[in-house]
């Protein structure tokens, strides 16, 4: 087995390119030989992964922990749904329009909290999430209140409605590929280095001329711009939204936990974390659904085990293995 792993020599750039191209192709043709159940699981995984990458850009790199990240999911879902329901605006366009309120919210939260300690940011994100949830419940004539907004299933691609699961798979798959590309460029570029520097030591970073406030704001805006379209997708794919399903504190915490288990502040961390935890969660839901809440207990245990044995996430174990492979 070790010989086989060494023989792979996956650290070379050449082979890595082939592996990435193969992976992209594999997931692109997957709907041709997959049942709808598998595609639904993958759609859920991709949505979570996009949210996790979005979370990672602000919280993983700068270490300003967002615990209310699904606020952007909710804004995306409600903005496009309301625009479609009230004004007949296509959710494709609604998806773009929803970026404006998300950006504005990211700027407001950033301006209020980025000068303070990271804990204030974490608490503010939770508070804003709850405020948005309550607003969605309160303004029932616009949002549908606790009943939410329900779509009638139909096939209308112009308005982002499909009867089959495959088109949804391709939409979220393209969104995922774009997100991964953005995340890769940030990680390898100067913005990623700047954000890591701020996360490592903000005082040292401003002492070498980094405008920490501006960089954190930029990171948070990018993060919001990535997460918001997932909300529109979610609304169209599920067919209905209620405040509790999109302005969801549990989902926000889950995204953060996945990022930390995979390896916060790294390009691969969210990808690894999502592909480990979402299948585990689904298996728990299938086989242990009668034990309500057990998945959260297992999440907590996994987080504790990772924090104790791999405080930098599973990615640190993989990197260690690759270094070992290179050495021998």
């Amino acid at each position, binding site marked *: 087995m070790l010989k086989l792993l060494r023989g792979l020599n996956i650290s070379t750039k050449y082979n890595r390119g082939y592996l990435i191209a193969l992976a992209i192709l594999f997931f692109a043709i997957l709907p041709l030989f997959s049942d709808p159940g598998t595609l639904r699981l993958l759609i859920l995984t991709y949505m979570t992964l996009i949210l996790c990458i979005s979370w990672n850009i602000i919280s993983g790199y700068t270490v300003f922990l967002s615990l209310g990240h699904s606020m952007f999911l909710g804004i995306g879902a409600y903005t496009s749904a309301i625009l479609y329901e009230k004004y007949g605006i296509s959710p494709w366009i609604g998806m773009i329009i929803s970026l404006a309120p998300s950006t504005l919210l990211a700027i407001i939260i950033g301006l209020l909290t980025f000068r303070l300690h990271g804990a204030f940011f974490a608490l503010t994100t939770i508070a804003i999430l709850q405020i948005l949830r309550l607003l969605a419940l309160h303004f029932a004539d616009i949002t549908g209140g606790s009943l939410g907004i329900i779509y009638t299933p139909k096939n209308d691609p112009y308005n982002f409605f499909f009867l089959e699961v495959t088109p949804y798979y391709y939409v979220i798959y393209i969104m995922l590929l774009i997100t991964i590309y953005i995340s890769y460029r940030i990680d390898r570029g100067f913005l990623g280095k700047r954000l890591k520097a701020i996360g490592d030591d903000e005082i040292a970073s401003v*002492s070498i001329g980094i405008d920490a406030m501006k960089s954190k704001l930029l990171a948070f805006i990018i993060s919001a711009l990535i997460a918001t379209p997932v909300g529109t997708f979610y609304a169209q794919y599920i067919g209905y939204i209620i405040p509790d399903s999109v302005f969801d504190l549990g989902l926000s915490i889950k995204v953060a936990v996945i990022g930390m288990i995979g390896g916060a502040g790294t390009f691969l961390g969210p990808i690894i974390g999502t592909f480990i935890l979402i299948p585990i969660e689904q298996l728990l839901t299938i086989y242990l659904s009668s034990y309500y809440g057990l998945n959260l207990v297992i999440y907590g245990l996994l987080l504790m085990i990772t924090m104790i044995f791999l405080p930098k996430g599973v990615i640190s174990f993989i990197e260690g293995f690759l270094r070992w492979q290179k050495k021998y």
Partner: protein
Amino acid sequence: MAEEILITNNVVKRFGGLTALRGVSISVKRKEILGIMGPNGSGKTTLINVISGIYMPDSGKIVFEGVDITYEPPHKRAKMGILRTFQIPRPFRRLSVIDNVVISLKNNPKGVSKNIYDAAKELLEFVGLDRYINLPVSHLNTFMLRKLDLARALALSPKLLMIDEIVAGLVEAESLEISKIIEEINRLGVALLLVEHTIPFLARVCKRIIVLNEGKVIAEGSPEEVMSNPVVITSYIG
């Protein structure tokens, strides 16, 4: 052009009930190496933090190249040419040695005329870290981390470089190497403000020393004058 590159005028800094700086007025001349010394808790590092903008003063004024920078944020001061190192090195641990310098070079207001990685390599060569460029900073010892701190500050073409207790805990050979680097930096036209706890290192590289005690300037002069000053002796011995 004024002879002084930096003037602090009656700077006061309080932390709750503790007054760390009690009206400190000093000046740093262009291209000089000025030493600041004083016993523990005398306000040396607080002074650097106030000049670099990490702390805002409660009162007083800081003027750099004729411009009042008292309330300028630290990143702007760095871009104006006021750089500093830290008593306990503060590297960016998730970046490699060279990326620590590259990220700093990226903020150089004049830009970098050559490839940014080549420029970073040159700076690391200057401080003697060229063998470690691609290593994570966790592979460096304290002496190397202090040199990395220097390279990172030099990347912004400083006009005034404040160096905080760089030889504390180093052996004589390392201290000598640091002295040579500092003198070389000064030959490039950079004014230096060296903060140290004790006098031997300052006496080797500085012509003028200012002594702080309990947040006040208590003496100023050549190393010999300062060393023989009874007020200074009393402040150290008690």
